[in-house]
């Protein structure tokens, strides 16, 4: 993150403006800055930060964090290169900031579900994580509530069912879709309000897969925590476990060996390639172009097989541990990877050329499902989706971790924001990742891949760029065990982009737009 302390402090001061507050900031373990504020200071501060074009990238609650306060709300704000965590202590309630910073809407509902915090002036009071069958006044993330299933309601009155926004008017009808979809897809509910064939409004209902990950992590060892992080979202196993390890390593003050970082980076980029390829193949299936889809699907299967050769897991699981890697990768396997990268690049380019010169594909891809640039910051839309809509954020560049400061990817933003732009951004990222892997393999440092790492007490924020975008994690360790694990993947933010991208589009284009946004349900529902 920000390496030069003086520089970082100056940037925070600039952000906070003149006044006493900038004297109260303290630096965290990972270059992030913490600012504890009182309730009267809170709204004016957030208002001024919103006016200074800060994005709210995370909001979560934790218990017994500040002496004398039962709960603390942590608001993570970002402006290029600066990460500011505003801490607001509270007994039971806080002012809602969802009107100022719309990306606060879901997290506020989440804090209400988890901890029973009331947000005054909030415009959405519906439950988020906990669906109708959960008992009333049940707040599972409170420390006094044990991690055991509650007594669920056996039936739900129609009046207690989730109220979707009603869209009224001549010729408006609703199409409910899900939670169980027609394909091999994760569950979620889409409520379309349609006029003729055009989508007038889409409302999502997620969290069918809420597995209670954050609570599950509490009281666990740091090693167990990494395995839990891998289970947040299968195809982001490396990204989320690396995010988790960075936080633990920063708390412990551990320096991870160079070779471990080089290999971790190879695995992260390998994961990105696999994810993007699957996504591109899916987009081509959705526009009925199996010739292109098959070529990308074949390469993707080979990536999975290469993953298994390198690590013993097709999803690269079990490799990332606090302090480095669980084991080294054999030289002959790395050599196989080098040859693989070289031939994949050639085949990928050929496939790409066929796809991008096929009129029927382009006709469906453009200008379909536009994500406007104006929603990027308010909703904290990240990753390839943002980069296809004129955004130029990439955690690897803005807050470089590991060895990315020396191997920064070139951020190539496109501006149309449609399906074609998202497809093209992913294509250039696949080629960049292949280049980076090849470069790293050329000059792989020797040495150990793991050092002892045991965090005792402390907390840290970490960000990584997964294939889907910015993945945030905040870990608080007490007496060597996990006190609080907060994880927020890119999908949690990016899901809201789909409500905007489908407006005015026809229903049959929805699957394509959905695929082009590559959203993980598991990574959202937690």
């Amino acid at each position: 993150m920000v390496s030069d302390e003086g520089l970082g402090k100056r940037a925070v001061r600039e952000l906070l403006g003149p006044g006493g507050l900038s004297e109260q900031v303290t630096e965290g373990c990972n270059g992030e800055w913490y600012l504890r504020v009182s309730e009267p200071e809170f709204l004016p501060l957030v208002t001024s930060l919103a006016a200074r074009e800060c994005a709210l990238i995370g909001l979560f609650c934790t218990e017994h964090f500040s002496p004398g306060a039962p709960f603390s709300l942590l608001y993570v704000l970002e402006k290029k290169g600066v990460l500011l965590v505003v801490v607001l202590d509270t007994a039971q309630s806080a002012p809602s900031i969802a009107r100022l910073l719309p990306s606060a809407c879901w997290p506020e509902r989440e804090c209400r579900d988890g901890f029973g915090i009331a947000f005054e002036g909030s415009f959405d009071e519906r439950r988020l994580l906990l669906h109708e069958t959960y008992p009333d006044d049940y707040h599972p993330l409170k420390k006094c509530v044990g991690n055991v299933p509650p007594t669920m309601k056996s039936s739900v009155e129609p009046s207690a069912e989730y109220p979707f926004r009603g869209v009224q008017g001549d010729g408006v009808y609703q199409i409910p879709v899900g939670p169980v979809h027609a394909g091999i897809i994760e569950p979620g509910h889409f409520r379309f309000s349609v006029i003729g064939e055009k989508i007038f409004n889409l409302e999502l209902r997620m969290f069918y897969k809420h597995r209670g990950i954050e609570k599950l992590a509490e009281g666990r060892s740091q090693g167990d925590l990494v395995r839990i992080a891998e289970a947040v979202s299968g195809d982001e196993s490396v990204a989320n476990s690396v995010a988790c390890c960075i936080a633990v390593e920063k708390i412990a003050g551990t320096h991870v060996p160079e070779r471990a970082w080089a290999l971790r980076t190879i695995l992260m980029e390998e994961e990105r390639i696999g994810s993007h390829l699957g996504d591109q193949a899916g987009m081509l299936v959705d526009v009925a172009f199996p010739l292109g889809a098959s070529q990308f699907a074949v390469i993707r299967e080979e990536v999975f097989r290469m993953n298994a050769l390198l690590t013993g897991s097709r999803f690269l699981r079990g490799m990332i541990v606090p302090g480095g890697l669980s084991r080294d990768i054999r030289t002959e396997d790395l050599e196989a990877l080098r040859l693989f990268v070289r031939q994949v690049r050639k085949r990928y380019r050929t496939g790409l050329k066929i796809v991008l010169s096929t009129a029927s594909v382009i006709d469906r891809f453009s200008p379909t499902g536009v994500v406007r640039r104006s929603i990027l910051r308010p909703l904290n839309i990240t990753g390839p989706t943002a980069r296809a809509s004129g955004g130029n954020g990439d955690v690897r560049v803005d807050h470089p971790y590991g060895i990315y400061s020396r191997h920064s990817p070139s951020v190539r933003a496109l501006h149309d924001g449609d399906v074609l732009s998202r497809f093209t951004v992913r294509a250039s990222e696949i080629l960049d990742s292949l280049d980076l892997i090849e470069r790293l393999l050329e000059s792989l440092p020797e040495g150990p891949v793991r050092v002892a790492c045991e965090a005792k007490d402390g907390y840290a924020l970490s960000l990584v760029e997964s294939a889907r975008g910015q993945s945030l994690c905040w870990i608080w360790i007490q007496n060597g065990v996990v006190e609080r694990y907060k994880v927020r993947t890119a999908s949690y933010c990016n899901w809201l982009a789909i409500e905007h991208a489908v407006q005015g589009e026809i229903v049959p284009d929805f699957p394509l737009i959905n695929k082009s946004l590559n959203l993980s349900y598991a990574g959202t529902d937690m």
Partner: protein
Amino acid sequence: MVNVLSCLLKRKVTADVPARDEEIEALGREIRREVDAVFGGSLAIRELDTGSDNAAEIEINNLTNPYYDVERFGITFVASPRHADVLLVTGAVTHNMAVAAKKTYDAMPSPKFVVAVGDDACTGGIFAGSYAVLGGAEKIVPVDLKIPGNPPAPKEILSGLLALMRHAGRTR
């Protein structure tokens, strides 16, 4: 005109996709035999995710990629539980999915089979004991076969389906 004619008459070529795995081919031939003998030529599968981390879905999806292409062995993935012989369940069963999962099973015609795919569906896996999950798939539907793994690879899923069909053939 000559151009149009030559386009029409020219041999149509698609790109040669190099994807063949002898082990899968052999497994596929056995599956084909069982599908023909036990399920009258086609085995219809409905996938149901009750709370997975999405890795198991990805592997099930991979069964349709050119390396496996299981449709040629008589296995099809169907859009509705009403058309399915087999329900593949992935993930621990969350409270939020319990009702939908039960409805999906109930919508299937009998005789029907349920296969739990992956550690989470088999036992609840890493999520066992969480406030938000009931446990493995058997907490809401009767399970005929469990395929463990984190997640199981496509080849393991295919071997599991073969075992299911042999079991179904014997108990018919």
